[in-house]
């Protein structure tokens, strides 16, 4: 009986899920955004939502469930409704970073990844323009000459923390690590001479660089944004120093693969339009950046593998 029952159940499941996919979507799709309105993760998710509405023909409602670098939302919806109307929009630095730093005990495998649909303009390591350091190597060398005198401002737990660990433990730099808060606070601290170097989003630093108050040493992206070419990358100095923040759409674990595929098709269609290219060009100085389901999973895995390989060194003495 057991075998027959299993077969019947499997058949039923296939039938149900294929019929799911056939008339999906028929009602409002909910996307839960892991970060607050006003930030890049929210902006990208809302732009995507607006495009998906046009393509899928149903309403797409975005709500922000924020806190703990996105962990609150992911915890709440990772076992959410598997009906194909619940999705989570987040960024990969939060998804993989929270797992690597031990804030949560699950990673992208706890979800059905739908799509990686964009990439951030990234953070840059910056110093005051009046300082003598011209490259990341200069800065690291200087810190080795006078250990503990160059103050590197970071925030604990996030991507900047991972950066500091890599600089200290793989690059053998000898900075005086100062906790200086979020990006806005780190900028304040750098301008107010409370720290000597830090990493902040390019978008916050751009005007200060142009005005000649700050100098960018490198981007921490694996390569320069397409519209900001020619910047040195931190990975030229330390190969492990690659912090790519990509935007990802996830579904709760157990969402039927047909629906995941159908949603991914819609995302890919949205990302291929000239309208989308203009949105991401204007907002993140990047060209459209998106993958099919397998490609998205491979992309998530590559970053997770890199981050998890750093776990043994994620400690600053």
């Amino acid at each position, binding site marked *: 009986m057991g075998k027959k029952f299993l077969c019947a159940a499997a058949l039923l499941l296939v039938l149900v899920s294929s019929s799911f996919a056939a008339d999906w979507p028929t009602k409002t799709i909910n996307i839960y955004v892991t970060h*607050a*309105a*006003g*930030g890049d993760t*929210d*902006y990208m998710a*809302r*732009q995507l939502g607006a495009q998906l509405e046009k393509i899928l023909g149903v309403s797409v409602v*975005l*709500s*922000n*469930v*924020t*806190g*703990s670098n996105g*962990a*609150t939302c992911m*915890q*709440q919806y990772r076992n959410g409704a598997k009906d194909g109307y619940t999705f989570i929009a987040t960024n990969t630095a939060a998804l993989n970073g929270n797992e690597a*730093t031990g*804030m949560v005990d699950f990673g992208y495998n706890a979800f059905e990844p739908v799509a990686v649909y964009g990439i951030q303009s990234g953070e840059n390591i910056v110093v005051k323009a009046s300082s003598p350091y011209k490259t990341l190597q200069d800065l690291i060398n200087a810190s080795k000459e006078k250990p*503990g*005198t160059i103050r590197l401002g970071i925030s*604990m*737990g996030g991507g900047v923390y991972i950066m500091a660990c890599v600089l200290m433990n793989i690059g053998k730099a000898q900075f*005086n*690590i*100062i*906790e*200086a*808060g979020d990006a*806005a*606070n780190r*900028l*304040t*601290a750098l*301008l*107010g001479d*409370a720290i000597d170097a830090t990493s902040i989003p390019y*978008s*916050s630093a*751009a*005007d*200060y660089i*142009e*005005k000649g*108050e700050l100098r960018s040493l490198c981007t921490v992206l694996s390569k320069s944004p397409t519209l900001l070419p020619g910047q040195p990358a931190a990975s030229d100095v330390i190969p492990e120093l690659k912090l790519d923040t990509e935007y990802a759409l996830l579904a709760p674990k157990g969402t039927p693969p047909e629906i995941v595929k159908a949603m991914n098709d819609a995302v890919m269609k949205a990302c291929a339009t000239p309208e989308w290219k203009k949105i991401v060009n*204007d*907002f993140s100085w990047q060209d459209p950046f998106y993958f099919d389901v397998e490609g998205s999973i491979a992309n998530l895995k590559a970053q997770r593998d890199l981050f998890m390989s750093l776990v043994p060194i994620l400690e600053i003495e």
Partner: protein
Amino acid sequence: MILEGILAVCQPLTILWIAIGVVVGIIFGAIPGLTATMAIVMFLPVTYSMSASQGIAMLMALYIGGISGGLISAILLNIPGTPSSVATCFDGKPMANKGQAGRALGTGVVFSFVGTLIGIAILIVLAPVLCAFALKFQAYEYCALALFSLSMVVALTGTDMPKGLISAVLGALLATVGLAPIDSRPRFTFDLFQLNNGFALVVLLIGLFFAESVRKKQDFTIEENVKMKGAGFTFAEFLAQIPNAIVSALIGVGIGILPGIGGGVSCMISYTVSKNTSKHRELYGTGIMDGVVASETANNATIGGAVIPLLSLGIPGDPATAMLLGGLMIHNVAPGPLIYEKNGAVVYAIFTAMLIAAVFMLLFMLWGMRFFVSVLKIPKNYLLPIVMVLCGIGAIGNANQLFDTYVMVGFGLMAYLMIKAKIPTVPMILGFILGPTFEQNLRRVSQLASSDPFYNHPIFCVLIVATILVIIFSVRANLKDAAREREQELSE
């Protein structure tokens, strides 16, 4: 460029968006639990599709409306509509209880307008100079500033200092729930991921004040004699308040400039300063204009102050301006040292929008006052359940979490017990806001102390001395008040 900015705002559609923003902001501000920040969060995505000047004008209108609307529920219900109006309750509600609700509202509205104007004026004229000053505030200075502001607790505690201090310490302890600053270790979370973020200020606030207003039996009545005439006060009374308003506005702007402190603190500090420098300090809390003026002028002046580092440095001063920063970036206006050169027209558009929003706020609130006061005519046994539901919605709206509603009810019960034990709730709010600022910066200072000793920081030293003086004077004044109370009791 200036003209271009003004013209960008003086379009019928943009002015309509400003008007809508002000009205929505006032509603969000007036409903306990819904704050100016939430209004901005909700409408930020709506502005994604607008032009830069339209979108930003609307966000500014929401901000100004939201901070101003809080006084309505503070005065009529004794529940501050937003954290910025906490101190408005102190004298606003007693005025309403004396049958002067209209006068209290009029005072609040007019001086909110005055405060907004002073804030905007300082923003337009002095922004670059003040930015340099704001950058001098780093870990040491914030640590001392938090201590200085906490020392104001002593002044707010009334005559029973130990109970006031208990309340403040409890507030600071409540704020330790969640991920610790700096190292992100969970504290008192009991493995509930909802607690990782800690408690939200607005949830604590509605819990505390709600219990306080529901508890009072004499409130379950209809207040008949509510009169409304003009703004409710004479021109001579207005002139008499000018010095108080100017001092309060300067305090408001000063706190606004310093990132991370915010309107909730500015109204309480300015109320305390106003009380302690007044010739009739014993009347504060009994329902006098001065208290409402101090609180409402300061919290609205904080708007202009907070916009200074937002525009000139790209650094937000409070949660609401953090949202505005996002709104600006999304419209490809990057606040920072080059904003005047790159987006000068947008900057002047923002100034113009703020001025128009301030005028709309004044007109709408003065016009609406006669309707607001009629809230007092609703029997409290009908009114308070509605307010309670709105509070619950506000708690959910904070982070889309039903959990926060339970927390709100829990805080309500806690507040009930505190009131029974005659422990004041206001110092708790200051402790809750400033505790984390103090802790975070103290921990940063401890990282710095070996390489960068405190005597290199003159502002730190001045603030510490000021803190000690404030404590000494407040303790003396409180002891005097206590002695007078005892004498009064004896003579009765």
